[in-house]
């Protein structure tokens, strides 16, 4: 870690600092955060994240300088039990460095944004003291995510996996005693619990995969496992299928695929920077990273690959349908995230690892941009609400329950918040996959790969892409165009520089990101970069048909949304026009296809019933009331009162003690009669003594 070691020009030994910098940041904020000002706390956290980014860049440079040769940097001995030997080693290769750069880069921008955002949010929620906590958790998240992507073994990856799950819980439930509107409620902490529990189910899958892997491969380190992959897959394919499918459960949990995606929409209860960082750009992509990393395992079992791809594709389409029916600005983006994750999972499932990772990177840029801009919109509405309540003077007081995230309260915001509007447009176009924004290139590559090898996946993903463009268009028309439907929207204010500048950086990346891997000869930089790690990658050129079809569909979708939402702009209180068109289908989409209700009825309520039974009947009535109170306490009381107290203590011991006293008294009463005061009897006693002694002496 010393600079002298880097005289060779390579910085591999700096890799532990990607974890140490955020840890130092979080410790400083934890110990001194209450005494530093808000700006100081935010700066410490952002600098910590920034330094991690600097180290990532240096690592990237080092890899490039050494022609992408993967480096394993040993750090410490960790677990050594019997044949199990897992050291704490860092793996610096192109795949992990890609993730590091995305996490720390986007993460730092979001940290800066969060300084401004949280400054306003703690004032809206009326708890300024909670400010430092946020940044402690954010730095902790960066540290954990870095452990996840830099580990050289599945166990290290799992440590980070669990760690980011914890941070997700902590950050979703940041306002743990309120709901999203600031009212005292269990809502936010319930959302955090839901995230943790659903993730746990995924973690179970991961653990099963790891155990199976250790049992059959004898190790959990990447190098040792991947070397044996083909051999074991040929000999016992069931083992590898089991491992890969167990891992898929983990991926479904962490990357919000069917059936474990239900936590992600609820996770919008957390502050917007959290949604952007964790639930759009970084944590949820951990699953995709896992599959990409396990490529040597997956390519040996085509059946498992097909399953993964189908899960991703179905999720993509399913989530997109739900997004169409949502009214909350962040919920639309949440389901959009699930859908895009479906794209990524489908891609890596199909074996198109480069396409999947490419989409991961571009999605990080534009989804973070969209979320952060949505946060800006929400803040703008909050400010507007305050302004309207102050000088409006009419019935809508502060006490009115006002949801600043509800799109039905918005409208016409492009006039009130122009900067946010343009930034949002960039994000929307990128997500919809319009040429030449970044999303176009990455999504296109996935579609191309699907069309070549997995037609079913291709049709599903294309349909999802259509819906993606549709619901984004719907959102843009509803939020920024038309007339304001609420006083808050009419008085909305633009956000400050601390918020808009990071967004501009992300917008730039969303526009130019496609350059990373243009599908033209000589520009496949990203593919070549990842090739060092993934081995041979299939590099496809540019297919005009596929690209053309997807672009046309996207434009058609936007046009359709314009038809529905912009020709007759929505007025306050008006029903969604799609309801008339689709009827009950729209209701189902609005109500998320009743999946949550289904889970509650089948699993959660049954679990609560069992828990109630165990608690009330088994624990309270049987164990406590009967066994404890009657048997144990009753026996004890009986023994103590009737036996020990009455018989032993009072009957026996007291009798002996009192008896001795009585005995002494009786003896003394009898002996006292000797002292009768008469001289004659005393003289008699003397004579008696004399006679006795004399008699004794005589008889001797």
């Amino acid at each position, binding site marked *: 870690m010393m600079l002298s070691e880097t005289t060779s020009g390579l910085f591999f030994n700096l890799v532990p600092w990607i974890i140490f910098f955020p840890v130092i940041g979080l410790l400083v904020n934890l110990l001194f955060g209450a005494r530093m000002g808000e700006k100081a706390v935010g700066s410490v956290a952002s600098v910590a994240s920034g330094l991690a980014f600097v180290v990532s860049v240096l690592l990237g440079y080092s890899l490039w300088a050494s022609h992408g040769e993967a480096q394993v940097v040993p750090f410490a001995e960790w677990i050594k039990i019997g044949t199990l030997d897992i050291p704490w080693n860092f793996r610096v290769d192109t795949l992990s460095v890609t993730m590091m750069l995305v996490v720390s880069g986007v993460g730092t921008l979001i940290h800066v944004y969060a300084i401004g955002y949280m400054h306003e949010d703690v004032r809206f929620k009326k708890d300024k003291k909670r400010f430092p906590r946020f940044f402690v958790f954010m730095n902790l998240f960066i540290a954990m995510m870095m452990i996840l992507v830099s580990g050289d073994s599945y166990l290290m990856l799992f440590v980070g996996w669990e760690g980011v799950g914890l941070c997700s819980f902590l950050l979703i439930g940041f306002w743990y005693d309120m709901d999203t509107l600031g009212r005292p409620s269990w809502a936010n902490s319930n959302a955090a619990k839901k995230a943790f529990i659903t993730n746990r189910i995924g973690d179970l899958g991961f653990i099963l995969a790891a155990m199976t892997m250790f049992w059959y491969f004898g190790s959990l380190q990447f190098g040792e496992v991947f070397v044996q992959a083909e051999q074991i897959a040929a000999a016992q394919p069931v083992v590898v299928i089991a491992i890969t499918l167990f891992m898929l459960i983990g991926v479904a949990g962490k990357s919000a695929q069917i059936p474990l995606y239900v936590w992600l929409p609820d996770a919008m209860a957390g502050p917007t920077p959290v949604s952007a960082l964790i639930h759009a750009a970084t944590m949820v992509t951990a699953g995709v990273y896992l599959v990409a990393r396990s490529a040597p395992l997956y390519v040996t079992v085509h059946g498992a690959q097909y399953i993964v791809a189908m899960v991703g594709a179905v999720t993509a389409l399913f989530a997109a349908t739900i997004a169409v029916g949502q009214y909350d600005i962040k919920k639309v983006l949440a389901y959009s995230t699930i859908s895009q994750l479906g794209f990524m999972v489908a891609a890596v499932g199909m074996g198109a690892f480069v396409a999947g990772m490419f989409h991961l990177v571009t999605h990080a840029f534009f989804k973070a941009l969209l979320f952060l801009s949505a946060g800006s919109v929400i803040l703008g509405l909050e400010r507007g609400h305050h302004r309207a309540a102050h000088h409006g003077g009419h019935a809508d007081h502060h006490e009115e329950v006002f949801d600043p995230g509800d799109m039905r309260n918005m409208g016409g915001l492009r006039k009130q918040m122009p900067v946010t509007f343009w930034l949002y447009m960039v994000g929307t176009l990128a997500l919809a996959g319009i040429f030449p924004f970044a999303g176009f290139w990455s999504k296109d590559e996935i579609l191309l790969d699907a069309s070549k090898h997995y037609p079913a996946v291709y049709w599903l993903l294309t349909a999802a892409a259509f819906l993606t463009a549709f619901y984004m268009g719907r959102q843009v028309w509803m939020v920024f165009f038309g007339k304001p439907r609420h006083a808050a929207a009419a008085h909305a204010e633009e956000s400050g520089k601390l918020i808009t500048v990071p967004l501009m950086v992300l917008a730039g990346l969303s526009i130019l990101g496609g350059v990373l891997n243009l599908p033209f000869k000589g520009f496949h930089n990203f593919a070549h970069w990842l090739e060092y790690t993934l081995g041979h990658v299939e590099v496809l050129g540019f297919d005009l048909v596929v690209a053309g079809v997807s672009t046309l569909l996207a434009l058609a979708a936007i046009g359709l949304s314009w038809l529905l939402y912009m020709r007759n702009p929505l007025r306050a209180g008006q029903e969604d026009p799609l309801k008339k068109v689709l009827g009950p289908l729209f209701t189902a989409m609005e109500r998320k296809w009743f999946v949550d209700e289904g889970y509650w009825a089948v699993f959660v309520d049954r679990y609560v019933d069992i828990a109630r039974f165990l608690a009330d009947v088994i624990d309270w009535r049987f164990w406590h009331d009967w066994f404890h109170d009657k048997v144990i306490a009753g026996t004890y009381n009986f023994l103590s009162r009737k036996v020990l107290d009455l018989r032993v203590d009072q009957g026996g011991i007291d009798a002996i003690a009192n008896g001795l006293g009585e005995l002494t008294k009786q003896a003394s009463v009898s002996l006292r009669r000797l002292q009768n005061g008469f001289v004659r009897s005393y003289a*008699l006693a003397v004579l008696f003594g004399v006679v006795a002694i004399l008699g004794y002496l005589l008889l001797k």
Partner: protein
Amino acid sequence: MDLSLILFMILAAVAVLTAVGLLSSRNAIYAALFLVLNFATVAVFYLLLGAPFIAMVQVTVYAGAIMVLFLFVIMLLGAEKLPKGKVLPWQRPLAITLAAILVVEGGILLFQRLSLAATIPNPGAEVNSVKALQDLGNQLFSQYLLPFEVTSIVLLVAMIGVILLTKLEKGETQG
């Protein structure tokens, strides 16, 4: 049969009988007189044992002074007769029994354990001589000088004690 033995027996009987008389008299005066007789008998015994000086001392001091003092006090206090006793009825028989046992024990000791074959010779004329008296006086004032002096102090103390004990306090009256 020896004359002295007969004499001894008679005198012994008298001594014992007077002692019995002392014990059984109701009247204290009678008891005192019986005791005087007893003392006189014992004085005769002393004569038989060849101790004429002691015999005289006995009669003079014991029978003459002490018993007279007794009689004075009896008459002073008017305590000739006492009313009948009411308490400790069991004490009498027990005391008599114990005294009897004591006698028996004495007898066993004298006639069984200690075989004393010795006899006392009758006193001759030499016990009446001045020489005997001189010897007595010599021994008294040389070997036993200290006890002699101490005894004189005892007598002094007794006198003082008597005076103190019978002193009347201020305001007290006699009787």
